[in-house]
């Protein structure tokens, strides 16, 4: 079963606009990660935010985390056509001590129109 849910499921904007995607999760976490997936390809790691962090930046990406609401958001500023992809949030879940698996949401399909 999926841990989290992304919102919206699909987003279409014009090039140059900002894109915001949200992720909600159910259980406590150590960290939350965002991944990008181009059509038919593997996942590319974008950013990791720890549970004691509230905001993190990487280039045009800004991630926020609100553990009280069990939610995170990914903001992509000044979007480009190359940003067209699916975006997934993933939380960690312990397997055995020290080992964890990733639990993904269903993703947001982002389309940037030229």
């Amino acid at each position: 079963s999926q841990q989290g849910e992304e919102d919206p499921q699909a987003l279409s904007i014009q090039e140059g606009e900002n894109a915001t995607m949200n992720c909600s999760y159910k259980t406590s976490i150590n960290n939350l990660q965002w991944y990008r997936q181009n059509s038919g390809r593997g996942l590319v790691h974008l950013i990791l935010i720890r549970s004691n962090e509230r905001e993190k930046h990487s280039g045009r990406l800004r991630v926020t985390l609100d553990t009280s609401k069990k939610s995170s958001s990914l903001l992509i500023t000044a979007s480009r056509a190359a940003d067209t992809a699916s975006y997934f949030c993933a939380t960690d879940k312990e397997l055995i001590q020290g080992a964890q698996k990733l639990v993904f949401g269903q993703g947001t399909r982002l389309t940037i129109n030229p």
Partner: protein
Amino acid sequence: DAGVTQSPTHLIKTRGQHVTLRCSPISGHKSVSWYQQVLGQGPQFIFQYYEKEERGRGNFPDRFSARQFPNYSSELNVNALLLGDSALYLCASSLDGSLSLSNQPQHFGDGTRLSIL
């Protein structure tokens, strides 16, 4: 350096057959995880291996099995294939599976697209 490599890239099988998927992690990475991604869904965890030991298994039937070799490469085997096994199978590697993933993101290959007819 090469990233995570998976083979084959595409595979077509019929119901009841068996399939073996292969994964080579990034050089120096000792932990390998397998995920199944059905079209339109997020990846679902199948297995994690570290130093040839299974560290965890997802909610998949016993038809799914895996192993890791001394060179840290891994195979995923699926027996008695069903139509519902059609999916993209992703392999991910990380440096040291004994540490919390808080410090090390997983690196994914491009996957094997498995189609069951």
